């Protein structure tokens, strides 16, 4: 029998309201799981048991008083450590922010906290969300619960692994080039990147502002819609926040896929370098869509090949600008040494505080924005972005959703790609286009490859049309009935 922390949020919400479990029981279940596993998984940079117990007790009081509770109340949540939490240290996986205790909350967390969410802790991630394997965390890598020798993906690997292992029931991450969907795929959970601007980024430690999205990790599609509903909606503190009023994204989710026009991005499925087990699992899922009554045809995104190149100019350019704020003056680390002036202090602080990948991207971005090179690199990349957006617009005239693998491979081994940045970057080749276009996309687990590791199936939709993405994903999830759990969980001795 599974523990409370292994259940979906909607089932826990039911039990809380029926009096079958208390929020304290649920919180203790998740905290116990963290205690059992986190030494091996290294999912959390900081666990917040006191806060979790306090928040759970408040929910139990509200339950006892008989009031209506928001859907997220009493559900254990993990937050990626790039999202600021007032009074709870927030490092973005970097040494340069090691001492940083934010004096304010990010908007997604302030909304969830007000609604009674229970914070289990802050999750490990690639430094400043830059990476695809979590090996760029300054505090050591996360292990994939499905196989401890493999990576959980990145950059939100800690959030993905926490949900897969039952250390949290759901989690928030961020997706700049695939950093929610790719780790969700590698850890066998549901990862949703909504439309650009759907979720406020106030209090998100910025990496690349035109590409950064806050997204969700959940056990199932219904929970993804529920969690998104709780954090979405206009925020005057974020100028890129969509003006749309709050919405219930679970509405219409169970309408099925009969008649839905589904475009298969065939070029990706037949790409050289795609793992045969991934292609096979994705193809058989596409067959299920057909069997469920969807109209399935081949789609093409002709400029997607160029998206990766454009991304690796645009994201570093924006990162070099955003990360200029880490100067050793207002927050974080300072390395003074014998610095003769403030510029030397800045350079020493940054040289000591940033890790390899962050330095590489700052250098790349600084170069591509520097005098004489701007038009040749950044300017050209922004034009490619236009072409990628046009590709999607053309495809969405014919189709309601596009489907493809989330990542070309299942979880790869730790250390396998750390020496070759370009090989690492390929892990995000199917996720990056949706960041350039800002369109919503979800990854759901669609089976296990012959290596025993989960495969992610990606559904991409029109700008602002999370509803259709969730509807297609929900129908598939119900049909596939993917219920496998990391083998590790079966080994836990339960009282």
């Amino acid at each position, binding site marked *: 029998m599974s523990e409370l922390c292994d259940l979906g949020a909607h089932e826990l919400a039911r039990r809380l309201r029926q009096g079958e479990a208390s929020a304290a029981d649920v919180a203790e279940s998740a905290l116990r799981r963290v205690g059992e596993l986190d030494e091996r998984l290294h999912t959390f940079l900081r666990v917040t048991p006191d806060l979790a117990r306090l928040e759970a007790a408040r929910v139990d009081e509200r339950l006892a008083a008989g009031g209506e509770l928001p859907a997220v109340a009493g559900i254990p949540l993990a937050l990626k450590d790039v999202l600021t939490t007032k009074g709870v240290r927030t490092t973005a996986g970097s040494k340069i922010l090691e001492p*940083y205790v*934010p*004096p304010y909350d990010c908007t997604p967390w302030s909304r969830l906290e007000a609604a009674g969410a229970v914070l289990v802790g802050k999750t490990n991630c690639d430094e400043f969300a830059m990476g695809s394997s979590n090996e760029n965390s300054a505090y050591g890598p996360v292990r994939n619960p499905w196989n401890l020798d493999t990576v959980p993906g990145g950059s939100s690997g800690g959030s993905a692994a926490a949900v897969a292992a039952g250390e949290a029931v759901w989690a928030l991450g961020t997706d700049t080039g695939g950093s929610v969907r790719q780790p969700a795929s590698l850890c066998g959970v549901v990862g949703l990147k909504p*439309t*650009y*601007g759907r979720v406020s980024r106030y209090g998100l430690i910025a990496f690349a*502002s*035109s590409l950064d999205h806050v997204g969700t990790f959940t056990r199932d599609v219904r929970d993804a819609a529920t969690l998104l509903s709780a954090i979405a909606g206009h925020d*005057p503190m974020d*100028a*890129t926040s*969509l003006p749309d009023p709050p919405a219930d994204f679970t509405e219409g989710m169970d309408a099925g896929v009969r008649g839905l026009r589904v475009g298969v991005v065939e070029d990706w499925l037949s790409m050289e370098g795609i793992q045969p087990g991934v292609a096979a699992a994705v193809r058989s899922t596409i067959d299920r869509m057909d069997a469920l009554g969807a109209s399935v045809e081949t789609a093409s995104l002709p400029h997607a090949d*160029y998206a990766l*190149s*454009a991304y*690796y*100019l645009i994201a570093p350019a924006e990162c070099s600008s955003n990360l*200029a704020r880490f*100067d050793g*003056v*207002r*927050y974080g680390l*300072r390395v003074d040494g014998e*610095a*003769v*002036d*403030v*510029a*030397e*202090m*800045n*350079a020493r602080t*940054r*040289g*000591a505080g*940033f890790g390899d990948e962050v*330095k*590489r991207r*700052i*250098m*790349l971005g*600084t*170069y*591509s924005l*520097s005098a004489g090179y701007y038009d040749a*690199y950044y*300017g*050209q*990349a*922004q*034009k*490619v972005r*236009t*072409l990628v*957006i046009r590709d999607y617009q053309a495809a969405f005239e014919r189709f309601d959703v596009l489907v493809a693998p989330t990542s070309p491979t299942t979880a790869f081994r730790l250390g396998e790609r750390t020496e070759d940045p*370009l090989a690492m970057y390929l892990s995000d080749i199917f996720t990056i286009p949706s960041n*350039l*276009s*800002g369109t919503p996309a979800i990854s759901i687990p669609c089976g296990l490859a012959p290596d025993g590791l989960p495969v992610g199936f990606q559904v991409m939709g029109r*700008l602002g049309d999370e509803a259709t993405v969730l509807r297609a994903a929900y129908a598939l999830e119900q049909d596939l009935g993917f219920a496998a759990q990391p083998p590790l969980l079966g080994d836990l001795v339960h009282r």
Partner: protein
Amino acid sequence: MPVDIDIEHVARLARLALTPEELERFRRQLGLILEHAEKVREVAAEDVPPTAQPIPRANVSRPDEVRPCLSHDEALSTAPDVEDGRFRVPRIVEQDEP
């Protein structure tokens, strides 16, 4: 062909103090990454306008209202060095030798 980069100049612009080993490694890696990234030039024609962000919005403003914000102490609470209610830094301007 890998792109040739004046890596020390870039490190100065980026305010990054790097070791000789890091400089050499980044020079090599950036050259390869940029070689790959140059692919963008194959398709970016003259008549294609650039896109800066997926949902362009301009002049987004909110009402100019007085409301609570971080206190002076809260704003300074995260600083590595503070003096007299201000951020303290090494000297910024040159000083004449006595």
